[in-house]
């Protein structure tokens, strides 16, 4: 439902969105040279970036996952960033349940501090076990695309199926991370059974 008039709260939202955008701008200006350079994303990764963003809407985090109701929802990318600018564009100005979305990129798992959705790049496929261990007990929705990702403890794995992108969900891992995944998302997903993936 779209509201046409600018109510007070709508105005505030746009302001806060603007304010949130300023540090992001600086951050990107500062951080960008240090971080791995965003490369030009393929069509596949544009879709995946959108999915990544959509996950934020179909997953519920426990309240203690946020410092405050207005605390940002952090989407982290660990390892090589395959999305290029696509993810930044999708996420720009978006707010989910009062949380502004921000993107953080990490070179290694140690850098991960507060993170809600962590895309674990294929570059980190060999270190998955270590990564999942260090994330244990944290409310992080792990998303990956390497083989056996979901099976080895990741929560959502992108899979390609006849030129379409699907995903597979490990409900046990989600439960372990105290995350509630919307049944609607589950409808669109494959559920990982033990021994699969």
């Amino acid at each position: 439902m779209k509201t046409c008039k600018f109510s007070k709260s709508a105005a505030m939202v746009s302001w806060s969105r603007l304010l949130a955008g300023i540090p992001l701008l600086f951050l990107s200006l500062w951080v960008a040279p240090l971080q791995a350079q965003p490369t030009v994303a393929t069509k596949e990764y544009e879709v995946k970036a959108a999915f990544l963003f959509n996950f934020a809407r179909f997953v519920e985090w426990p309240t203690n996952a946020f410092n405050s109701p207005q605390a940002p929802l952090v989407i982290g990318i660990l390892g090589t960033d395959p999305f290029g600018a696509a993810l930044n564009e999708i996420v720009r100005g978006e707010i989910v349940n009062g949380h502004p979305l921000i993107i953080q990129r990490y070179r290694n798992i140690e850098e991960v501090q507060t993170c809600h959705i962590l895309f674990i790049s294929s570059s980190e496929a060999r270190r998955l076990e270590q990564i999942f261990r260090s994330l244990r007990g944290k409310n992080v929705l792990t998303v990956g695309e390497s083989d056996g990702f979901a099976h080895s403890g990741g929560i959502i794995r992108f899979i390609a199926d006849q030129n379409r992108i699907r995903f597979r969900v490990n409900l046990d891992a989600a439960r372990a991370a105290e995350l509630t995944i919307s049944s609607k998302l589950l409808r669109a997903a494959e559920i990982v059974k033990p021994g699969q993936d």
Partner: protein
Amino acid sequence: MPTTHTPIQRKLMVIILLTAVTALLATRTGFFIYEYVTFRDAVRRQVATVSHVIAANSSAALAFKNAEDANEILAALRAETHIAAAALYDSSGALFARYPADAPNNIFPSAPGLSGYRFEKLSVVGFEPVTQGDKFHGTLYLRLDAGVILREWLRDSIVITVIVIAGAFILAYLISKRLQKQISVPILALAETAKAISLRQDYTVRVPTRTGDELGLLTDAFNQMLERIHNQSLALQERERRFRALIEQSADAIAVIDAEYNFTYLSPSISSVIGFSAAELINSHSIDQVHPDDAPTVRDTLNRLRTEPGKPFRLVWRSQHKDGQWLWLEGMVTNLLSDPAVKGIVANFRDVTERIRAEAEVRKLNTTLEQRVVERTAELESVNKELESFSYSVSHDLRAPLRHITGFADMLMNRSKAKLDETSQRYLDIISNSAKQMGVLIDDLLVFSRMGRAELRHTQVDTAALVDEVRQDLATDIGSRRITWHIDELPIVHADRAMLKQVWVNLLSNAVKYTRNRDEAAITIRCRENEQGMWEFSVADNGAGFDMQYAGKLFGVFQRLHTAEEFEGTGVGLANVQRIIIRHGGRVWAEGKVDIGATFYFTLPIPEKSPHDNTKTDSADRR
């Protein structure tokens, strides 16, 4: 139930049933409209609900571009048989999923429209945005074929309506069939009675009263009306009998003739009047019964009374009795042609033959009588005149020998007084005196006869002066006597002075004469205006008086209450007084008591303008 009774009952029934059905139809129509509106609303809400659920469920499928999932979600609409088509559009507006899965593209809108659901012809069509949180993922399109539902609903509605109305109709019929009797039965009873009355003219019939409502009142009123009609017709019959009896017992014959003067009614008494019976004369022409000499008058009167309806005309005519004798008839004829109760000219008449004959005789007698009276009066008048002139001439002629007797008796006395003895002298005196007395008598008679004949010469007469004059003339008679006079103020009157003087001379000389034996004579003259507006004079004395039982004789000629020895007189004076006063238009009378006195009254008319004020007379006592 008799067929003649059916209409009102059927009318009542039809009214009740029509009313019931109309009311039901009206209610049902209102209800139908309400149902239709709520039904449409419900359908729309239902579609909205379904679309809500689908839209909510399909957000993930859209978000994650899972067309299979989306189609699967839409396929669940199979359960809703009336959903004709559904589709999901992605956020860019491209068709993403469809229902039915094999539906061609052209049944779906090429792009999503405004959100919300609305009726389009017989379908509910609408779009609903698919969101997750506040993120727009796409649009749901839904089309529900409401035609079938509407048809079903309409069919159910009509079936229910028909059943309800049919049930109500039957129920109303059963109820009204019983209840309408409360109204129809008393009305039918009334109608039955009214019919019976109009057929039999029997006003003694009564309708039984059953209810206390208006119908009961109507019945009561009807019964009362019958009662009154009954009473009135009885009274009318009674009155007609009475009038008929009056007419038929009447000695007068009563006839009614029409505008052509033919008899239309004749009372039975006609036969006792002219011998013909009513039956013999009815329808014959009335003028034919009239004597030919009277016919023009009768016809003329009838024509005249035609112009004056209601006015009675008196008419006398002759008609021939059955026995051939002519009768005089008299009657009153009245034009009642315009009176709706009569429509004729009414004549009531009787036989007046005897009366007419008697009248004619009386008239004849009267004319001869008058003739005779005139003749006799003329006779008497001439005889009277002859008598009067005879007595005048006799009186006149008697005076000459009398003068001779007295004259020669006196001369004899003077010449031979010494030669005559005393007895002869006494005889001679008696002769002389008797002759003188006879002279006086003759004079009086002459006066009396003159009074009757002489013409009155009216002048203004000062009564006071006249009375004074008379008293002067009486001075010798009074001589040395003591008389107390009391005289009122006396008026000027209009009279013949010489005659009026005679009156006063007579009255005053009488008063003086009859008080002769009184030591203290008193004579009072009074005058007043009496109740008839005349002067009333009176002369009262305390003289010898008279017995009232002879008062009538006082004013007759030669009538005397005293002997000549007691009081001299001829007995003509008061007769003269009466004659004069009557000729002046007055009246004279007297009152008296023996040895107490007498009062003589007379009246004179007061002229129009009596110069009473000029008659100031000294009212002091005069001697």
